Structure formats: C-alpha cells, structure tokens
C-alpha cells in the first residue's frame, strides 16, 4: 500500500475524481477479463493490454468533444471504452462476432465506431498520424471546431510518418493533439536503445509545436494536460504534443516472454500504478472507502459479465458476407 497518500487538492471536485477512478477501474477490469478470455481461447490473434496506462486514456478522454475524432493504435480497448463504444460491442468484436463494433473483422487491434468518430485501431505503428492530420484538415476547412486526437506509442516517433505528420500539422496549423503514450518500450526495445534523443518533447518542439511532458500515471495531470491541449487546438493555435510517461504492466502481447525487462522493474512501477495511487488519494480525501470500492467493483463486474455473455451469445458473420464492404454497397 501507498503510505501517507496526499489528499486531493481542494480544487478537484470529489465526484469528478470518483468518476475518473471508476473509468480507470472499468478499463483495468475489462483488460483483466480480456486476458482471461484469451487464455480460454475466446479471444485469439494479438491482444495488447492497457493495464498500467489507464490514467493516460482516461485523462485524454475528458477533453474529447462529441465532434472530435480519435485515431488510436492497436492497444486501444481502453480508448474505445472511454470514448463511449459500448463494452458489449468491444467484447463481441474481440470474440470475432458480427455484433462487434467492426463486425468481428478487425478484432482487438481494429476497433472502429463511426458514431463516436473512433477511427481505428491502426496496427501499423505511425500509420494513424497522417490520418489524424487529414481529419483535422477537414475540420479546419469545413469551419468546425473539431479536434483530431491522435494517440500513439513512443515507438511511432522513430517512424517517418511521425515527422512528416507533425511538420504538416504545424505548417498548416491544424487542430491535432498528438498524444504520445511513452511506456518506454517499443515492444521489447527500450527507448534509449531506439532513440538518439530520448527527450521526446524536443522532437515535437523542433517542429515548433507546443509540447509538454506529463506524469502519465497521475490522472489529474493527464486530464489537465489534455485540457490545455484541447483549449489550444480548439482555439486555432495549431497542433499540440503531449508526452505521457507511463508504463505497461503486462507483456506487449500475449506472445511476449518479457526477456527485455526484469520482474523487479515491473514491480517497482506497479507500486506506483495509476489506480493504486489514485485510490489512496481518494481514501485520504475521504472519498473512497471499502464499501464504496466494493460497490464500484460489483457494478463493473456486472457490466463485464454481461459483456462476456453478450459476446458469447453473439453470432459469427455468415461466410457469404466475406466479400461485403471491400467496396461500398451504395454506389453512385
């Protein structure tokens, strides 16, 4: 347990703080259930868990407006849930059922939802950045105040698409918030083994973006940073870059033997995990006790059980539909 946790500052609304905690907890428990479903064989393929990084997505999503788009990566279950894609649809997608948010065609790495402008789950590292830039370009040309939220890992910063996209977004002053989830490992390659300059904000600043680095394990810090970014991008100040320093508690995917880091290192980070520390602060502020925690856990567990039941009861898409949607069905 964290000892002597600091209470929340007075400026933080207690009810809102509980909402943040609940959202993080919901993602955590969903991911744990996903791992369980994977070991049972209900989920196959690649499965990338967000455990340890929940404060990042949770903080970001507080500032994502309905008209905004979210472009995410293959580690996007948390973002999808936080953006408001129903848990049933996300779980059914991972079960490969047609009730899934991508009809079971995308799986864990390719969650899509047109209604909430969740434009993927992109599993090409760096591939989502140009798309987010384009969405922001459309928003600007159409005169809306939509912002494109582009979420990627620090591994993407070694890709050319990162550099091309930041340059273009700044050159054209587009409303994109580039959210780098720096968990310090690009799959198994540590940051200092892949980047000559590990101060990632410097790369963004070199393209003249407003950029900041925040503690990605502190949901109040991530929320505040995302709000600053949203205000800036929405008011016409061009793109914004945030490095969220975080840590992945679980393996890269279910195929990862984790030879590249020690158990001690993982354990050390877990001690300072986003849920653990925030729960302690909520307790210190008198906002969360054992009863309240148990109630939250029970509500989330019930939702997750319902999602699993929904996914299990889901139907496989008929093979006859395999070639549907290679091209649009409504042609001019």
């Amino acid at each position, binding site marked *: 347990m964290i000892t002597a946790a600091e209470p929340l500052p007075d400026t933080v609304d207690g009810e809102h703080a509980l909402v943040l905690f609940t959202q993080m907890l919901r993602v955590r428990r969903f991911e744990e259930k996903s791992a369980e479903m994977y070991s049972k064989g209900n989920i196959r393929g690649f499965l990338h868990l967000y455990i340890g990084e929940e404060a990042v997505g949770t903080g970001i999503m507080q500032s994502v407006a309905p008209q905004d788009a979210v472009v995410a990566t293959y580690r996007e279950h948390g973002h999808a849930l936080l953006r408001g894609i129903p848990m049933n649809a996300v779980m059914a997608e991972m079960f490969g059922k047609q009730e899934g948010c*991508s*009809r079971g065609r995308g799986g864990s790495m390719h969650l899509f939802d047109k209604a909430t402008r969740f434009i993927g789950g992109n599993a090409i590292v760096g591939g989502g950045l*140009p*798309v987010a830039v*384009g*969405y922001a*370009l*459309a928003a600007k*040309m159409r005169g809306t105040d939509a912002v494109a939220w582009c979420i990627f890992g620090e591994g993407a910063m070694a890709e050319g698409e990162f550099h091309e996209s930041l*340059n273009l977004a700044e050159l054209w002053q587009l409303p994109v918030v580039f959210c780098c989830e720096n968990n310090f490992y690009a799959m198994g390659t540590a940051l200092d083994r892949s980047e000559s300059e590990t101060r990632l904000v410097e790369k963004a600043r070199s393209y003249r973006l407003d950029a900041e680095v925040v503690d990605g394990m502190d949901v109040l810090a991530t929320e505040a940073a995302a709000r600053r970014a949203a205000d800036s991008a929405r008011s016409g100040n061009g793109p914004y870059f945030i490095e969220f320093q975080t840590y992945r508690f679980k393996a890269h995917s279910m195929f990862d033997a984790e030879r590249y880091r020690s158990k001690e290192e993982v354990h050390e980070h877990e001690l300072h995990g986003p849920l653990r520390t925030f729960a302690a602060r909520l307790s210190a502020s008198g906002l969360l006790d054992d009863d309240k925690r148990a109630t939250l856990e029970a509500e989330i567990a019930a939702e997750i059980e319902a999602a699993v039941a929904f996914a299990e009861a889901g139907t496989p898409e008929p093979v006859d539909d395999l070639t549907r949607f290679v091209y649009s069905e409504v042609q001019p």
Partner: protein
Amino acid sequence: MNSSEPTAMREITYREAAREALHEALTNDERVFLMGEDVGRYGGSYAVSLGFLEEFGPERIRDTPLSESAFVGAGIGAAIGGMRPIVEVMTVNFSLLAADQIINTAATYLHMSGGQINVPLVIRMATGGGLQLAAQHSHSLENLYAHIPGLKVLTPATVEDVRGMLATALADPDPVLIFEHILLYNRKGLLAEQAGAVDIDRARVRREGTHVSLITYGGSLWKCMEAAELLAQQGIEAEVLDLRILRPLDDESIIATVSKTHRAVIVDEGWRSGGISAEITARIHEQAFYELDLPVQRVCAVEVPIPYAKHLEDAALPQVEEIVAAAKKVVNGHD
C-alpha cells in the same frame, strides 16, 4: 451522349482535358481540393494545374512538403472527415513512399471496420516511361495497386477518359487511383463539346477487328492503334481493347474480344512477371480456354529497371514493331 445530332468536337491535349476535369471538379463541389507536391505555385510537375492557385486559392490548391505518406494519409483523413480530396503524387515511383497509407489504410478501412468507414479519396499520379527519366521516374507500377482489394485503378488513355473519369472517381465512395501516362500529356485527341463524366466499369473496343485482339491500356493503347494500322496494311484486322480500368478488370469485355478473334496479344509497359498481363492471361485461360486458337502472346517491358539512354529505354519498353510481330505470330502460327 447518343443524340442523333452530330456531336460538335474539338481538338484538345490530354493535359488540357485533365485540367478541365480538375477545374470542373473544383468549381462544382466546394468539398473538392487538390493537394500534392508543387501543384500550386509551380503549376503541377506536368503543368496540369497551372493557374489553379490563383483561381481557387491556397486553401484548395495545397502545395505539400515532400512527405508522400503524410499528405496521402491526410487525404484519407480528410476524406473520412467529409471532404473530397484529390491527391496528386508526382510519379508512381514516389507513391511507394505512401504505400503504407494507400494499401494498409485506404484499402482496408471499409472492410476492417465492418462497412463503417469508407474513404472517398482520389489519387492521381503519373506513370510510365519514354522521356528518358531513368529507373526512378519511368516505371509502370499500377499493377501493384491493381493487386489490392479495396482500391479502384483507372488508366485513362484518351482525352474523353481523362476528362470524364475524374468526376466519376470523385463520386465514388471508395479510394480511386488514376494513372496518367507521361507520354500522353502532349497528345491531342478529339473531345465532344459536351464531354462529361464517363463510366469506370467497362473496357472499350477502340478499333474493331476480327483476326486478333490487342489487349492493352494507358500509354500502350496508341502503340497498339498504330500497330493495328500497320497490320491492316498487311491484311490482318486487329481489334484493340482498351482496358481503361485495371481493378476491377472487365472480364466480360476481355472474354468477348477473345471469343471473337480467338487470338490475343496483351501489351503492357509493366513487367511480365506477376504483372497485369499475367493476370489477364490467366483469366482468359480460366474463362475462354477453348476459344483460343493459339496461346496468348505478351509484349511487356523487358525485366530491367528502365534505363536512361534513349536506345536502351526504347529497347526496354514495348514498341510498335514488337506488337506487330506478336500479332502476326499469333495469327500466322509462326514468326
């Protein structure tokens, strides 16, 4: 189109026809904008968009940095976001720098999202050899994209098609790639005064014949037309089929011409190995094997990177004499 009144025609270059198509698209739909390297102040590397920046302004005629992946991907994002972008990639060779966006993103999103996210994007690019631009500006890689489900691949060879395909491509809900052969820009053709949108579904017979089918597209069409003329002087009536669209291929028209002439020569500036000519040959065998009197012949680029020196470049690319020779071989049964 088929009114009984004689259609007034005018002579126009392919470049000018491409320009008219773009001008019309920009004028008719405020969602349409053009972006790419040097499309604005420079006027387009092949001068197709000269003057557009002044007329439509920098918001809609966007010069981009040399960032093919970013601006093609931005086209995808803008298309998803409600615009109708036309992205110009200077040559097909450079499009490989954007292959991730075209193949992994534009071509996959609709299917991978279960039918939710379509990408109404048009990408234009120059293709082909013949200007001594050597091995990084002369290749015909359209076949690479014709391999990809989710894309449509257009190869306008005539002034009507380059004038009319763009509007149809822009109305299409899915990504469409338009390949303009570099040797065509200065070529003149006759265009109806009322020319407008054309279909992007069917191949077209450009010359009727009964003895042999020359199946081709893009820049090679005119070499085939010239070959057909020479063959006619020797008593061989060649039918010339312009594929127009490499994906989806119009099997019906291919099978129809082969069933008529029973002999086929496929002419392609791409390489033979794994090329569109191989695909067409396979389809003929699958669907019309017993219609063939003799095996299909192919005239393709020699399997080398296209060289600079004129005599070597000429030797590497399909030429009229080779087409004539291949046609005679398949008609006469020998060289």
